[in-house]
């Protein structure tokens, strides 16, 4: 890793974190909540949340919440299968990239996430002038596509790291559990199981989203095209 890269990546990560903290700071959030005049839901302590599980209503609510998460995992499996069938090589390349340079993907994902939020705020100022609406819609679609593709790459990476074949003999022995589809499904199941853990699951899933957005943009959705072409004069 070059000296410039060693400096840029931690600096970028810190800057993006600072920007995110600024945007989500209690002062700004409370001012915004006061101006919108909508009552914020009271946050409950962890112990009281746990004690709710002892009641029938609390247990039913917890089961409903888990059912919603599992339903979303089912939707993720459907999307992952479709994307992997049509762009398996691209997903595999992005998966390799996040394993080869994880810190870079994380920094890029964090900066991109911050950029999405700030750009959305800037576009929201343009909403009264009509042009803001299509710009916001385009940004939203791009952000969703980036997140979906990136998460599928992370599923592939997680599946390959945990359940991938290490040797050629091991690969030859496997009849069903091999290939991109199987690795993606394994990743969905692994990350989905972690997602069900109350606090840690949300953190891990959010981190996976940041990594996913980073690897999707780092590899240009697995196509390896240059993001910005360098201009060079033609030589006679």
């Amino acid at each position, binding site marked *: 890793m070059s000296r410039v890269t060693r400096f840029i990546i931690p600096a970028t990560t810190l800057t993006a974190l600072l*920007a995110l903290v600024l*945007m989500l700071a209690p002062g700004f959030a409370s001012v915004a909540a006061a101006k919108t005049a909508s009552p914020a839901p009271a946050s409950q302590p962890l112990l009281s949340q746990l004690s709710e599980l002892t009641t029938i209503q609390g247990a039913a609510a917890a089961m409903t919440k888990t059912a919603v998460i599992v339903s979303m995992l089912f939707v993720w*499996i459907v999307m992952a299968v479709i994307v992997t069938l049509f762009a398996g090589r691209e997903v595999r390349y992005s998966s390799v990239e996040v394993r*080869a340079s994880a810190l870079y993907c994380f920094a*890029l994902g964090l900066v*991109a996430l911050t950029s999405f939020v700030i750009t959305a705020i800037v576009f929201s100022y343009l909403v009264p002038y009509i042009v803001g609406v299509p710009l916001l819609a385009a940004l939203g679609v791009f952000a969703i596509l980036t997140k979906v593709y990136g998460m599928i790459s992370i599923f592939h990476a997680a599946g390959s790291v945990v359940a991938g074949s290490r040797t050629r003999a091991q690969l030859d022995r496997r009849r069903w559990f*091999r290939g991109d589809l199987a690795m993606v499904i394994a990743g969905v199941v692994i990350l989905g199981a972690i997602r069900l853990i109350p606090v840690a699951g949300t953190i891990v899933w959010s981190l996976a989203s940041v990594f996913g957005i980073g690897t999707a943009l780092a590899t240009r959705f697995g196509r390896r095209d240059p993001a910005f072409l360098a201009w060079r004069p033609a030589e006679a």
Partner: protein
Amino acid sequence: MKTPDCERYIEDPDANAGHLATCEECRALFGVNPNVNAPKIDVHALPLASWEGAQHRSWPVVIVAAMALFAIAAGLFGASGASATDTLAANIPTISRLQSLVVLMRQAPIMIVGVLFVVVNTLLIALLRRAPKGLSRGLDV
């Protein structure tokens, strides 16, 4: 080279392949030497590339995982007594929720947002200029 035949062989070895049988000097230079052994490569000793076996489509794994998740979700909805369609519909963002989000976003101080917009997007462009490293680190796709 000694003769015009030798020169013609050098220019187009395929068309003049018979020249090797007649010229001892060219045969010594360009002919196949049976004493030289080709390097032996043990394919199984090479590291496993990520593309090996990647095209295999394991539908049983997909079907089993999807059906298992569907069954778990259905079972949990059934046990909790909540309506699956109503609960899932309540979790989908609506237009009014997005509108309130836009209103919330516009409360941010415009100067801070403007500075952050320039700084963060400059960083993003700077980071995007780096080429992917996956191939150069031996992780073939």
